[in-house]
């Protein structure tokens, strides 16, 4: 069938629109990356001279170093705890029927609809009430609550995609429920568990609003340290730090993709 000029124009316009949208999506990252290499000590755009020095400064800055280390501690603990708790709740929700199941489900996903600052403020008040000094425990507890819905969802979807006949086959071969869990269910759930952990880790590491409330000078995470920095200074080291953030996250995703396949990591592909 011959293509009319009108159809060709429409096709071209469609492609152009897609390119525009995609460009719009990555525009912030591009602007920040360019700004990071600006030699001048102000966040201006476009830069006149180029330099790496803001990267050096960002890496050398003590608050950022502490924030990075604190962030790693909080992220590792909170996403791991959330994984264990979330996986157990996911099992309960998927495998059993009980009273108040809907209520439990609603409570578990409620952090999705409650603003982060509410959660943070809540933990702050609670910690003050029970005389909990603002150490890592309260930050980690807060992050567990915030990332739990994502872990829960990830494990739940993997469980739903897991064909029940694997477990039944193992049981028919004489494996006790615990043995089935350890040798069949958990190994087959690994992609879902890893993806849940990765999601939780990324969210926790980048979390700012609630962290602002619950962290102290000693426990502040990287986003909080960046916020405190930007209140006083406006040089491109912030942009440099952002670029490092982007590169690190991308590297993590590439790594996960190579190991598990992105489809499985993002849970959009049935794990088999």
């Amino acid at each position, binding site marked *: 069938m011959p293509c009319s000029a009108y159809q060709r124009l429409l096709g071209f316009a469609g492609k152009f629109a897609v390119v525009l949208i995609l460009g719009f999506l990555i525009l912030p990252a591009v602007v920040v990356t360019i700004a990071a290499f600006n030699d001048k000590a102000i966040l201006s755009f476009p830069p006149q001279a180029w330099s790496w020095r803001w990267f050096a400064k960002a890496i050398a800055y003590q608050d950022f170093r502490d924030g990075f280390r604190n962030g790693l501690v909080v992220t590792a603990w909170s996403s791991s705890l959330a994984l264990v708790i979330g996986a157990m709740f996911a099992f309960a929700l998927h495998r059993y029927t009980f009273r108040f199941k809907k209520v439990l489900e609603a409570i578990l996903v409620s952090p999705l609809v409650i603003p982060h600052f509410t959660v943070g403020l809540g933990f702050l008040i609670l910690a003050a009430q029970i005389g909990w000094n603002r150490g890592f425990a309260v930050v980690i507890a807060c992050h567990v609550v915030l990332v739990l819905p994502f872990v829960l969802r990830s494990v739940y979807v993997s469980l739903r995609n897991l*064909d029940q*006949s*694997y477990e*039944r*086959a*193992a*049981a*028919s*071969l*004489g*494996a*006790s*429920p615990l*043995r*089935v869990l350890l*040798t*069949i269910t958990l*190994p*087959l759930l690994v992609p879902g568990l890893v993806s849940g952990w990765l999601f939780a880790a990324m969210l926790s590491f980048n979390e700012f609003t609630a962290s602002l409330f619950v962290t102290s000078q000693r426990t502040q995470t990287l986003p909080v340290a960046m916020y405190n920095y930007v209140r006083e200074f406006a040089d491109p080291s912030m942009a440099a730090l952002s670029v490092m953030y982007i590169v690190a996250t991308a590297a993590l995703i590439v790594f996960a993709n190579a190991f598990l396949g992105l489809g499985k990591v993002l849970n959009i592909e049935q794990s*088999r």
Partner: protein
Amino acid sequence: MNKAADIGAKAQQETAAVPDEGAVRFSNVTKRFDAVTALDNVSMSIKPGEFMTLLGPSGCGKTTLLNLAAGFLSPDGGEIRIAGERMNDVPTYKREIGMMFQNYALFPHMSVAGNVAYGLKVRGIAKPERDRRVQEVLALVRLTGFEDRTPRQLSGGQQQRVALARALVINPTVLLLDEPFSALDKNLRASMQVELREIQRKLNVTTIFVTHDQGEALSLSDRVAVMSEGKVRQLGTPQEIYRQPCDRFVASFVGDTNVLRGRLEGIEGALAVISVGVIKVKVPSGAVMDVAASAPIDLFVRPEHLVMTEATPSCATSGTIAAHVYQGGHVDTYIECKDSSRDRLLVRSAGHETMARWPTGSTVGISIVAGEGVAFV
């Protein structure tokens, strides 16, 4: 002393009970899912070494019955015994069953050898013995040399053999097969069926086989239980099921059949005399025993028991040829025949001469092979 005698008597009772106990026995088993009764008071005894098929349309309860035997479900009423022991509250992993699933359910994170060895490992069998038995059973299903492959690297037929090997290696008391051939193409299916039956006979393992394919049921089974709506409609050998179906459902579900309108003339002992058109046929009187004379009767006749002849007044009926369907080994002929049948009649004849002799549109007479057919009200 009294007690010893008591035990002796009890032991005797138990031995006496064994012959009719069966390898697997369902007694008055009922299973409900919310408001739906999936199984309604089903009783069945499967003999040691027997190949029993549960046949029926989807939703008839056959899979539920298999899952009850496996222990994936527990009955709401009645009793399930395997090798004489009550199984109602015994969990699956203590039942010593081997099961093959519709999608094979091979563990994707284990090799072929790992899959087959799983049941032995669980039983704490040492590695040398384990390896020997894995080799043995892989040889039985003709998969020697495939030990290190993963399930995804195997064809459908090979996957099925691994599944069979995995179920058999533990020497199960009973082998449960859940529509294992439904994922295979037609040619492979036929050869796998023969292979399965040979292995089953060789090992003499009691087998329960679930299928909705009546051809499969007739060709493989020692006995077939035809089920519908949670009940066993008929339990018998494939020949009994095909030649003497007990009701309309069994007659029309198993194999092709024609329904001819007739009239009951009378009962002569075990035979009923039924008039179809101008002729009279004699068929077993079973289902029409208590019917009043001259009542309308439907005569169910298999397509291979109808014969096309010249249209003469002495034929059972006559009609016009609507279509011939050439099937290679035989020809299926559809005949439009308004006076004695609700639908088109199907006549199955060997050889392709019929197609030349009775072209489409020509008029033929139909007669019934003597003694064939079953009557229902």
